[in-house]
């Protein structure tokens, strides 16, 4: 019988985090479209950013992809297409380590740059600093998990972590599965979920504006002036624009 703490952490907290994420995004989109930006600091400094930012972002994209593959593709499926368990975990661990180290080195470079480049540091808000704490915590826990996994006898997270994640989606959380995983997995999961929850309230929201639509758009955009909105003055309540 799982303890109440386990029930909360593995049965309720994931839903809370995702709920905060989704409602936070909606709220921010509604009230702070103007603040929804990368706040790029490349104008100030580009020599370090040119290395740090792609390392971090591309590394992170691979890490994300790895999570999706690992958590959502059941072990049975990969076995069915002829990928042996040893080969799979070899691939997962190598790729995970390469991408994780790349991401980690990238973020280290970015933080170092942020601290040492005067203008960039000046443009760093308290919110940014707090965000880096959570981000680095999640990345550290994640990389540690991978490294521990690689150095010890192979523990297969696809036996309990992955089914637990999938169980969340059908609203039948199998708390017991997650509660028995090694401690590093549990820490990583919690830090990751916390990171989800803070995304809408930090500069990390820019990830949710990833401009994939650009690939499918004609180059030149035309827009008509909104006829209800000529000039910048608001219409007074009770007044209506005449159509003459």
């Amino acid at each position: 019988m799982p303890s109440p703490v386990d029930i909360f952490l593995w049965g309720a907290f994931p839903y809370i985090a995702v709920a905060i994420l989704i409602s936070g995004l909606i709220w921010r989109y509604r009230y702070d479209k103007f603040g929804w930006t990368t706040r790029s600091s490349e104008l100030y400094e580009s020599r370090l950013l040119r290395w740090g930012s792609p390392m971090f972002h591309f590394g992170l994209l691979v890490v994300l992809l790895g999570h999706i593959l690992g958590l959502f593709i059941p072990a049975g499926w990969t076995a069915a297409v002829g990928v042996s368990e040893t080969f799979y975990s070899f691939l997962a661990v190598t790729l995970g380590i390469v991408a994780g180290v790349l991401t980690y080195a990238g973020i280290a470079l970015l933080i170092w740059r942020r601290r040492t480049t005067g203008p960039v540091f000046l443009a760093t808000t308290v919110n940014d600093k707090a965000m880096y704490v959570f981000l680095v915590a999640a990345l550290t826990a994640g990389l540690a998990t991978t490294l521990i996994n690689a150095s010890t006898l192979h523990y297969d997270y696809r036996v309990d972590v992955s089914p637990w994640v999938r169980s969340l989606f059908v609203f039948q959380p199998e708390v017991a599965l997650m509660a028995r995983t090694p401690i590093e997995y549990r820490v990583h999961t919690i830090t990751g979920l916390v990171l989800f929850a803070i995304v809408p309230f930090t500069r990390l929201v820019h990830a949710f504006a990833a401009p994939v639509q650009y690939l499918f758009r004609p180059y030149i955009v035309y827009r008509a002036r909104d006829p209800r909105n000529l000039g910048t003055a608001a219409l007074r309540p009770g007044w209506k624009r005449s159509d003459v």
Partner: protein
Amino acid sequence: MRVMAQICMVMNLDKCIGCHTCSVTCKQTWTSRPGVEYVWFNNVETRPGQGYPRRYEDQERWRGGWKLTSRGRLVPRAGGRARRLASIFANPLLPNIRDYYEPWTYDYNALFDTPAGDDFPVAAPRSLISGERMNTITWSANWDDNLGGMPEHESDDVVLQRIQDKVRMELEQTFMFYLPRICEHCINPSCVASCPSGALYKRVEDGIVLVDQDRCRGWRMCVTGCPYKKMYFNHRTGKAEKCTFCFPRIEVGQPTVCSETCVGRLRYIGVLLYDADRAPEAAATPREQDLYPAQLGLFLNPHDPEVRRAAEQAGIPHDWVQAARRSPVYDLIATYGVALPLHPEYRTLPMVWYVPPLSPVVEAITASGHDGEDYRNLFGAIDTLRIPVSYLAELFTAGDPAPVELALRRLAAMRSHRRRINLGEPVDPEIAASVGFDVDKLDRMFRLLSLAKYEERYVIPTAAAGDVRRLEETELSGCSLDYEGGPGMGGTESSGPFGEASGRPAPLSVETFHGLRERQTSESAAETAGHRGRINLLNWDGRGLPEGLFPKRREDGDGHGDGHGDGRRDGHVDRGEEPGAGPGEVSGRGEGGES
């Protein structure tokens, strides 16, 4: 044929005296805020010179504009969509702040605070980017003004480099003129094409290219896309900003601020009708030298009844079509053929055109002891003075001297013709004929270039006749402080829940108002501990009271904050502080309110 209308500008370079009034008034209006200290929507460059930002014309380096692929397709020179997205995390083609210049202010307070002593106190320069002392100021938006730094910087002029194989510039033969630049509001804008979020757009009604501040996500690709480097990155809000062609003024039929205040009265604004269907084809003209004629071919003759019918069918309002018929811009570009586009080889089909300057030629002749007003001398000089002509051709026609020569000949003919009239000599129709005009046409061109009144230089139809009253930012029916969230959160003071730049944007007028008030009343003149206290005395309008200038007033607690300034404005602020003052979604830079 798909007729579209565009508001377009022509500048007569012969008349520019390089006074920078246009730049300063533009800056006062649009970019006197923190985050855009280094930004000049309008700047005036001395030519030859590097320009602003430095060497922006070097497209081998910056890769702005479009290029033709081997199969004749038009793609942004910096790469297509996939290439752009691949370099989104760090954009190697983004200019650094030092390519513009590091904006600064001075420690004016040192002048007041320094204890009495033997030495004069000094107001040392302080960077507005890092907040640190700057030892020497080494560059600015017009550091090489009036050929300052020549010949040291001469070799850095991109255009000069291109023609240098042909002629070396002799210092004794140096010619010089000024080139005022704003955004070109291109027909084929590569800034729009490179914006991944689709926040940049060309307005259907008047062709003005704008940034939707609510959609911009700060991917900063547009800065790379624009070959004229007229897209700027606001480093505090993390959003792109650009010249707006003063759309709030244009909408009510007023010229842009730069035009309104131009000392030389050299700017013309009017409507051009063009065929949007053929625009992509024109921009993809294989030979660069053919781009000018190709763009010329896009413009439709508003005097042709067929064109007018097509225009009205395309939904262009009647008064716009009428304005197109009276357009000074159409006359200079098409009827007289004296205006030329700036760098057509970038393939963006720019819409701010220039009448090339004849004065370098006249000066050269006069300096050599000949009569600089005689058209035969002038024609001869245009032919033999290779330097100015090939330089101008590199600027305006991708190197083809013929159109530049023709424009200069027409200006020269006009000059000689009018001199004869001034001196009471008989009119010589030969002069007009030599440039393919008749005397009447030459006289009309003279009128337009020399005498034209305000109403003739600016023929601007309003956005919607029935709406004129509501278009102004502040007028009776609506206060510009009535935007969502209400006043008090405005401008430089505001900081949304997610640090600076989050939260609803304040209308620009409000932000400027708050910024100005803050600068005038802040504790110290150059406090740089936070960004808040940044002050730029360049923007001080002399009306406020910097702290410490006068003894403190008795606080009488009438609620009017600082107890000075414009009472009416204070009244507005107070009224607006009631909750729920803002009924609408309107802001200076929201949907339809752009910057």
